[in-house]
């Protein structure tokens, strides 16, 4: 009868990742290398689990982030939306060592949200008439054709936030929010890597981006690399410009 909403704070990466198991489906937040749960991602390789189904928008890039999982050979399947210049993912695809499912990004996140919200499936216009529609039901509503897409749940979600409290209430920073709050809802166990852990009540209740109901384990990690993928700038042309 004791629920999972107490004693969530973890002492170490090892503790936080203890429930992982071989063959697990694991969602990982972040858009490329932006907003990655860096300590948890690195910790999974050390944890020694394998045959994972990785569900993440990009599965790493530039040899960093989730690319480490591909290099370690612990991934059996990837569901993502974009490969880009992720050479490790291209190599895995070329060599056929990993099954790769490429999904439209809006469908990807809506399937994740559906899993978290108890919705079994939904009809979307995205992908109608494309390879994405192969083998799927289509149906007309009000004269337009839609595609049936099913919920995408996972066993675990590994996400990163800027600030959190011990209940798992979380705030994200800028575009580091992306898929993370949705993934948290869709996983059996959500593990949160917070840059800073604050006291209950320090987060303004109107401004909690992710309520703690969706979080099961919280780990404070104060140091992050946060690499740039494309550092684009403009020149300063005096104070006024």
């Amino acid at each position, binding site marked *: 009868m004791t629920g999972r*909403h107490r004693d969530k704070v973890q002492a170490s990466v090892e503790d936080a990742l203890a429930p992982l198991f071989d063959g697990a489906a694991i969602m990982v937040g972040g858009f490329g290398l932006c907003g990655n749960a860096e300590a948890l991602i690195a910790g999974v390789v050390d944890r020694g689990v394998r045959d994972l189904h990785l569900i993440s928008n990009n599965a790493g890039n530039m040899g960093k982030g989730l690319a480490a999982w591909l290099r370690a050979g612990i991934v059996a399947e990837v569901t993502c939306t974009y490969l880009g210049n992720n050479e490790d993912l291209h190599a895995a695809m070329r060599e056929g060592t990993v099954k790769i499912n490429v999904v439209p990004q809006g469908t990807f996140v809506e399937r994740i949200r559906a899993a978290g*919200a108890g919705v079994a499936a939904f009809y979307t216009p995205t992908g109608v008439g494309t390879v994405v529609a192969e083998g799927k039901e289509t149906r007309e509503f009000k004269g337009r054709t839609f595609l049936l897409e099913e919920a995408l749940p996972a066993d675990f979600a590994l996400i990163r936030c800027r600030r959190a409290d011990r*209940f798992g*209430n979380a705030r994200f920073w800028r575009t580091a929010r992306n898929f993370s709050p949705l993934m948290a809802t869709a996983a059996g166990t959500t593990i949160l890597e917070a840059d800073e852990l604050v006291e209950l009540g320090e987060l303004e209740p109107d401004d909690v981006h992710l309520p*703690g109901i969706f979080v099961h384990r919280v780990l404070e990690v104060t140091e992050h690399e946060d690499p740039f993928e494309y550092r684009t700038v403009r020149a300063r042309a005096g104070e006024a410009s």
Partner: protein
Amino acid sequence: MAWSKQQMAERAAQEIGAGSIVNLGIGLPTMVADYLPEGQDVWFHTENGLLGMGPFPFEGDEDPQLINAGKQTVTVVPGGSFFDSATSFAMIRGGHVDLAILGAMQVAQNGDLANWSIPGGRTMGIGGAMDLASGAKRILVLTQHVTKQGEPKLLEACDFPLTACGCVDRVITDLAVLDVADGGFALVELAPGVSLDEVRAKTGAPLRA
């Protein structure tokens, strides 16, 4: 002697595990919060958009924009959060609420629940009842054992419109605690001084004991 409403609420509070997320229905279930021990990390969810609902405000602190689903003024505890209704029902429908404590007009031995409409009576509407009944991980019903007219509310089958099918896990009445298991009612506990015969007589379905 049958349990009072306060005693029913106190008994129901024992069903709330530490570290769980609980939604309390309108009416009698709302009273359950008063009987929780401290420090249990129990979080109350109210479907109009608040997790971490606290007690009624002190006089003068009422905020008309801080209410529960029964439209009573409430407070927020440290660590609480507000969100929109889509997120709130994602919590319910997605199975993130550990326990819902609901009232009932009728409960069937297969766990069917009727608690929103009496045929020919005044329709109060559905509100969050159907989502809670089908979405929460565990459903505890808190109700008088019989109607004001003395009719059994625990039945072989509901004849009122259903709220959800097969959803009820346990029932706490003024007379007893009963589980819904293996297609029938099973006695868990009698109120002090209440006999099994009395409970059987007032239950409209077989009762395993």
